[in-house]
C-alpha cells in the first residue's frame, strides 16, 4: 500500500523520464502481444496488403514504435487521495425546503473531470463541494466513460476479487480497474496491490509481460523493496539486461531525493541511497545502454545480492547456475568452431 502519513509519495518518482524509460525497457515488448486486438463487439475488417517503398516502410516502422509506446503507457502510480470537501456557504434558512440533497455539476465538455466544479446543497442548507465518491458517480452519470459503471462492480470486492485472482485473470482485473477508478482512488490502490501481490506470490510475471501493467508491477515491487522474486525470474530466463535495469529502478526509488528530469545521471545518486553503498564504478556505468558487458552486469547483480537482497542464497545459486551454463555454452561454441575450422 502507498498509504500512510509519514510514507513517501510515489508520484514524485513515477513521472521522471528516467523511471519511465526504465519501466519501458523492463517490458518484453513483443509486438504480437502488445497489439493483440481487444474484443469490444466491433465489426471485424479484413487485413489490408499494401505495396510500400523503403521510405514508406521506415515511416510505418516509426509509427509502430510510437503506437507501441502509447499501448505500453503505464497507469500512473499515485498515493491515496486526500479529502476534498469544503463548505462554501451555510444557509440555515433553506432548511426544510428540500428533503434530499441537490447536486450541481458544470458539464462544459472542455473541462477536466478532476477539476470540474461539483457542489452539493444539503437539506439543512449547507452548500459544499462534493467528496471524491460523489464526484466519481456524478461524473459518470453526466459524462459517461465507456466501460465504467456508476457504482463499483462487485468483482472488486472480496471474496470475488480473490476468486478472480485465483483464476489468474490478472490482466482482465487490472484493465478493468484502470477504466473504473482514478489512479489515486484508495480502491484502485487496494485492487492493484492485491493483484501485484498475487502475481508475485505465484511468480506468474509472464502474464503481465508485454502489457502496460508490467511497468506498474515493477514499480510496485521496487517501491516496496521486494524485487528478489522478479530478479530471480530474470536471472533464470538469462535476461541479465532486465535484471540490471530492475536493480537500477530499485536504487532510483530508494534515493532520498525525488528523481527530477533536470539533474543528469551522476555518481552521487547511487551513494545517496541509504544503507546501500555500491561501488561508484557500477553507479556511473549503470545509466549506460544495453551493451554493458556481461561481466559488468554480473557485478551489479552480485553487488545487489550481497548488500540488499533478502533471498540471498537462492539468488546466488541462480547466478552460479547461469554462469556455469554460459561457460558451458561458450566451451561448446569454441569446440564447434574448432571442429568447423578443421574441416
Amino acid at each position, binding site marked *: 500500500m502507498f498509504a500512510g502519513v509519514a510514507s513517501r*509519495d510515489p*508520484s*514524485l518518482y513515477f*513521472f521522471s523520464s528516467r523511471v519511465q524509460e526504465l519501466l519501458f525497457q523492463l517490458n518484453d515488448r513483443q509486438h504480437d502481444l502488445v497489439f493483440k486486438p*481487444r*474484443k*469490444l*463487439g*466491433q*465489426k*471485424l475488417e479484413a487485413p489490408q496488403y499494401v505495396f510500400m517503398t523503403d521510405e514508406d516502410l521506415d515511416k510505418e516502422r516509426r509509427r509502430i514504435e510510437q503506437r507501441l509506446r*502509447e*499501448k505500453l*503507457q503505464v*497507469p*500512473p502510480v*499515485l498515493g491515496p487521495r486526500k479529502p476534498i470537501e469544503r463548505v462554501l456557504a451555510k444557509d440555515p434558512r433553506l432548511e426544510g425546503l428540500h428533503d434530499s440533497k441537490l447536486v450541481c455539476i458544470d458539464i462544459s465538455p472542455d473541462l*477536466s473531470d*478532476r477539476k470540474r466544479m461539483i457542489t452539493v446543497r444539503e437539506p439543512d442548507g449547507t452548500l459544499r463541494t462534493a467528496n471524491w465518491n460523489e464526484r466519481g458517480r456524478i461524473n459518470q452519470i453526466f459524462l459517461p466513460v*465507456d*466501460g465504467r459503471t456508476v457504482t463499483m*462492480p*462487485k*468483482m472488486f470486492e472480496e471474496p*470475488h*476479487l480473490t*476468486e*478472480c485472482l485465483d483464476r489468474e*485473470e490478472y490482466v*482482465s*482485473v487490472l*484493465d*478493468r480497474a*484502470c*477504466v473504473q477508478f482514478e*489512479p*489515486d482512488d484508495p480502491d484502485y490502490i487496494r485492487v492493484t496491490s492485491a493483484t501485484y501481490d498475487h502475481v508475485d506470490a505465484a511468480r506468474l510475471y509472464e502474464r503481465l509481460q508485454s502489457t502496460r501493467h508490467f511497468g506498474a508491477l515493477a514499480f510496485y515491487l521496487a517501491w516496496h523493496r521486494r524485487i528478489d522474486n522478479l530478479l530471480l525470474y530474470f536471472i533464470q530466463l538469462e535476461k541479465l539486461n532486465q535484471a540490471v535495469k530492475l536493480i537500477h529502478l530499485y536504487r532510483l526509488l530508494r534515493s532520498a531525493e525525488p528523481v527530477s528530469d533536470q539533474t543528469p545521471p551522476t555518481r552521487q545518486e547511487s551513494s545517496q541511497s541509504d544503507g546501500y553503498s555500491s561501488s561508484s564504478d557500477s553507479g556511473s556505468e549503470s545509466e549506460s545502454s544495453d551493451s554493458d558487458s556481461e561481466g559488468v552486469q554480473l557485478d551489479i547483480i552480485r553487488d545487489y545480492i550481497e548488500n540488499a537482497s533478502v533471498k540471498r542464497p537462492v539468488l546466488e545459486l541462480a547466478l552460479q547456475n547461469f554462469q556455469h551454463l554460459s561457460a558451458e555454452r561458450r566451451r561448446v561454441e569454441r569446440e564447434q568452431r574448432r571442429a568447423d575450422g578443421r574441416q
Partner: protein
Amino acid sequence: MQSVLRLAGTMLCRSTARPCLSAGAALCQSAARPSPSAGLRTSAVALAGPVGAEPPLELRPLNKDRSNPVPVETSIAYLQSAAYRATYGSEPVWRSYRRNHKGHIPPRKTRRTCIRGGQLSTGNPCPACRDEYLVLDYRNVALLRQFVSESTGEILDTSRTGLCQVKHRELLAAMTKAREYGTLAFDVPFRVYDYNEYKPSAA
C-alpha cells in the same frame, strides 16, 4: 426401452419425444466417448461402448416437467460429464438446433417461451429449454461462454442460437451478472492517461 429407441430412430430433428441421457448416470465416471456428428441423435449401440467398459449411459424418456429448476451446481457438474459430451460433443449446445418455420426465411424473433405452466409446451423446444440441466447462471461459465462470439466478444443473437425470448433475456441477465462478479473475463476499452493531470504540482 425398445419403444423409446425406435422412436429415436424414426423421428429425427423434428422429434419432441427425444430420449434423453440420464443425468444421474451422467455424473458417474464413464469412459469418454467420441461425440456423434449429429449431436443429439444417440443410439444405444453408440452409447454401449466396448465390452467390459464402465456401465453405459442410460437413455431415459423425455421429461417435460420444468416446475423444479435444477440447481446451478448440478448444471456446472453436468457440463463436465460424459453424458453432456456424448450428447453435444465439443460444439456449443445451440449448434445442432434448427428452428421450424414456414418458408426459408425465419421470423425475426424466436418464440416468446417454450415453457408454459411449468411444462414444455411446444414441439422442438429451444436449446436451453429442451435440456433442463442447462442452467443459465452467472457461475455457469462453461455454458455462458458458448453464447459469446469468439471473434468479437458479443453476445450471440437469437437468430444464431435459436433461444426463445425468455431464455435469451435470462442469458443477458446472467452475462450482466457474470461481468459484475467477474466470473467471465472480458475486454474493456484501453484507457489513455494524460500524465499532466496527475503529475504533482511543481515543488
